[in-house]
Each structure stands twice: as structure tokens, then as C-alpha cells.
């Protein structure tokens, strides 16, 4: 189980690095979809090993919502506005953001070792932490609204991985609520993104939002 978790975790980290590398929004969404499916598969396996119907149900829900529904919804949105298909000018240059993302993984490892490790005693716990911070960095390093959303959902994926492996058994109603909220956020974000004009690619123009 530990090996599987490490494998899944490192694969996820790799996926996020790949997202940092990629500039086409569609490919990033597909990558996210694959990574969600992998997490769902891992949770499914976990549910079978622990013989817990809740975890299995959760894995199915998460596969449907994150693996299928949200990527499908976002891709449909992208087809409508073509200019959003590619990140033209990221905040941090691509090579730099890959390296920073890597450094974040190291930082998360060190941070985890210094703080949580004393109480949790599982080295692998640093992987979801790293994913969490990487997701946050994906949000910071890009201007494209869809990619920022993907970063947010990567963070949420990391939490599901963390919680599913280390502390299984969060009340089901809470998890269902979380998934429901996620759908809400994505739907609202889709509407807001739709309202945004082309200029959202350049945040610097909004003088009124300074200070």
C-alpha cells in the first residue's frame, strides 16, 4: 500500500510539473482529468482493501465529477472562446515555473519533515503537501482563468489523496458536501469566465483594484 501511494503521489507531482510545462489549456485539462482518474482508482483500491463502501462511493463520485464532468464542462466552455485556448504570457516564465514547482516539492518535503512527521510518522505524507503547494503555485504563475481553476482543483485532489490514505472515514455527508461545493464553484467560475473579456489576460490594467 505504501508503495502504491508513493507511486500515485509521484505520478501526480509529475502531472503538475507537466501542467507547468504545457501552455495549451486543453492539454492541461486532459492532464488534470487523467490525474483525477488515477486518484479515483487509488481510492477505489483503498476502499476494496479496507472493505469500506463509503470510500468506494467517494472514489466513484470523484471519478465522475473530477475525471469526467468538470473537464468536459471546461472543454465545452473553451470551444466557445478560442482566445483562451493558449496561455500567451504566463506571469512566471515556463522554465522558471517548472524549477520553482520542483523547489516547492523539496520545500514541502522539508516542511513536512520538520513539522508533521513528528506526529504522523509517514514520510509519504509530504507528497500531498507538495501537491497542495504546487497547485497554489499553478494559480499564482498563470493568468488564464481556466488554468487557475485547474490549480485550485489540483489542491483539492491533493487533499482527497491525503485524507483518503492517511485518515480514511471522514463523514460521508461532509465529503458529499465538498464535492457539491466544488461543482458549484466550477459552475459559477464558468459563468464568470464567460463574462470576462479578452483583457483578463492582462491583470495589470485594473488601476481601480490597487492599494
Amino acid at each position, binding site marked *: 500500500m505504501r508503495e502504491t501511494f508513493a507511486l500515485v503521489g509521484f505520478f501526480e507531482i*509529475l502531472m503538475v510539473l507537466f501542467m507547468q510545462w504545457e501552455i495549451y489549456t486543453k492539454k492541461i485539462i486532459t492532464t488534470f482529468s487523467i490525474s483525477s482518474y488515477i486518484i479515483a482508482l487509488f481510492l477505489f483500491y483503498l476502499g476494496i482493501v479496507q472493505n469500506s463502501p463509503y470510500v468506494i462511493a467517494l472514489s466513484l463520485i470523484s471519478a465522475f465529477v473530477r475525471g469526467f464532468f468538470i473537464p468536459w464542462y471546461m472543454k465545452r466552455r473553451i470551444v466557445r472562446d478560442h482566445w483562451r485556448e493558449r496561455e500567451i504570457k504566463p506571469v512566471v516564465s*515556463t*522554465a522558471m515555473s517548472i*524549477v520553482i514547482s*520542483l523547489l516547492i516539492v523539496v520545500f514541502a518535503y522539508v516542511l513536512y519533515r520538520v513539522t508533521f512527521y513528528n506526529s504522523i510518522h509517514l514520510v*509519504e505524507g509530504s507528497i500531498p503537501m507538495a501537491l497542495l503547494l504546487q497547485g497554489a503555485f499553478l494559480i499564482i504563475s498563470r493568468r488564464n482563468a481556466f488554468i487557475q481553476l485547474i490549480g485550485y482543483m489540483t489542491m483539492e485532489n491533493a487533499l482527497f489523496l491525503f485524507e483518503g490514505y492517511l485518515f480514511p472515514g471522514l463523514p460521508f455527508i461532509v465529503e458529499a458536501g465538498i464535492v457539491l461545493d466544488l461543482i458549484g464553484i466550477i459552475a459559477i467560475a464558468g459563468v464568470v469566465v464567460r463574462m470576462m473579456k479578452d483583457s483578463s489576460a492582462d491583470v495589470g490594467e485594473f488601476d481601480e483594484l490597487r492599494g
Partner: protein
Amino acid sequence: MLVFLSVVQLLYVLLLSPLVFGILSKIEERIESKKGPSIFQPYYDLYKLFRKEIIVPNHSSPIFHRAPYVSFAMYSLLTLVLPIITAFPLQFGPTVDFIGGGLIFGAAALVKKLAALDSRSNYSHLGLSRAASMGALAEPITVLIFIMLGVISGTNNPYVINNVLQSSSKWYLSLTHWFVAAAFFMVLIVELGRLPIERHSTAELGMIDQGMSMEYSGMDLAFEKWGGYVKKFLLMSVFLNVYTMPFFVPMKLNLLSVFIYSGVHFLKLLGLVIGIALFEESISKFRLFKNFDYLAFAFSLAFLSFLAFYTTVGRV
């Protein structure tokens, strides 16, 4: 006996290396639904070049004329010390380890770059500066890869690494090893000058490695090209024998198994070549500045192997 095998290995590499690239271009042409050149085309080219007249630029120094021979000699020396058809050290095996091999590779590249600088041609300079800036970033990755292999095997000897990976499935299946292998594959693509990095066409402005031998002709060019084939053949062999497919390589001195393995090795190379061809046909060339993103990703793979070691195996 070891001396005899060394000579066999040298001949094996020198004679077969053009063939591999003939096959590669043939496969690619076939995928593009073209007929393509014969798989022996590199031999015909070399034969033709050996009979042509040598022309040297007016202002060049003697380095220019000698560089192809020096680099060819260096690659031949490397052939004697790397595990190609055997997993036990041959006569000259103990002379250098991986770092030493890397240094000789670097020295050969340096000689080529000096010669390119010496040719006083703008296109050569263009290719040189690109190759140098790519190399400056690719070198640390290579070093990191060597270090990680050192961590796995406790030594820098390619033969030992091969034996460790061949005999221990724990190491072979570890994340650490596969991250290193993936990183090396990405560096390999850079060194081979294959597609996402460099396109083999006649457009001078897109050239990187190709541009450096722009001014050569005749026998000089033949050796330059042949040296290039040998270098790529060696890198591919190292990738297969040490990193990804360390299996079947004979670990004990047995003539028959070595000869059988020579065939097997060629099959492995064919598999790799087919893989590269498919890879190349499915992507397009990066813009020049995107190459550095590519290298950054390769670096992060090598570094992740470091982290994977600490989180899964090392558990310090």
C-alpha cells in the same frame, strides 16, 4: 581473450553504428508513406565522402582540420570502456568510470566546438552558441543522473550499475530508477538531436548540432559524421544496457553468450529506434526558446528521483 573481445566490441560499434541511423530514417520515411532511402545510405554517404576532395576555410587554424580525427579517436576510446556487448569489464574497462566517460564525452564535444569556432562561418557559430547554451544546462542534469545511479549502486562504474539493476528487481522497479531513466531519455533526445529539439532538414536557421559541421568536406566530414554516429550509438547502448533494459547482458566471460548477446543488443537498439521514430513522428519541433523548458522538465525528473529515493527507499 579480453583484448579480443575489446576488438570485437570496437568493430561492432564502428561498423554497425551507421546502419542504425539508416534504419531510423527508413522507418520514419515509411511512416510518412514515402519510400525512403536504403538502410545502407549512411555507408554510401561515408564511402562517397572518403573519395572527395578536402577543402579547408582560408582563415582556419590547424585545429579545424584535426578536430574530426581527435573526436573520432575519443569516441573509439569510449567504445572500449563502456558495457556494450558485455556486462563485465573488458581490457580497458577499469581505466575510467562514468564520470570519466562523461568527461571524455565532454572533451570530444569541446574539440568539435573549438573547430566550429575556428571555421569562421556564421552558421557554424550559430549552431555552436545554441549547442553550447543547451549543453551548459544539459550537463548538470547528466551529472545529477550519474549521482543518482551512484546512490543506487554505491559506485560510478557502469558495469556495476548494470549488474545491480540486472540482479535486483527491487532497484529495477523503484521509482528512483525510473525517474533517472526518464530523465536520461530526455537528455538522450537532446544529444541525439532528434525532433522536439532539432529537425534534420536543410534549413540552416533551425540547426543546432548540424550547423557545427557546416564547413567540413571530404574525409574530414566523413570522420565527423562517423564520429557522430558512434557517439549516438554509444549513448543509446548506455541507455539500454545501464538504464532501462539491463537484461540478458552476459555477466560472465563466455564467448558464445557474448556473440548471442551481440544479436540481442542489436534487436534492443532496433526497438529503441522504432520507439524514437514513432515519438518523432507524433510531435513537432519546439521553438528554440522552448528547448529550455524541455531541459527544465528533464532536470525536474532527475531531481524527483532524488526525492523519491528519500521518500520511498532511503527513509532517512
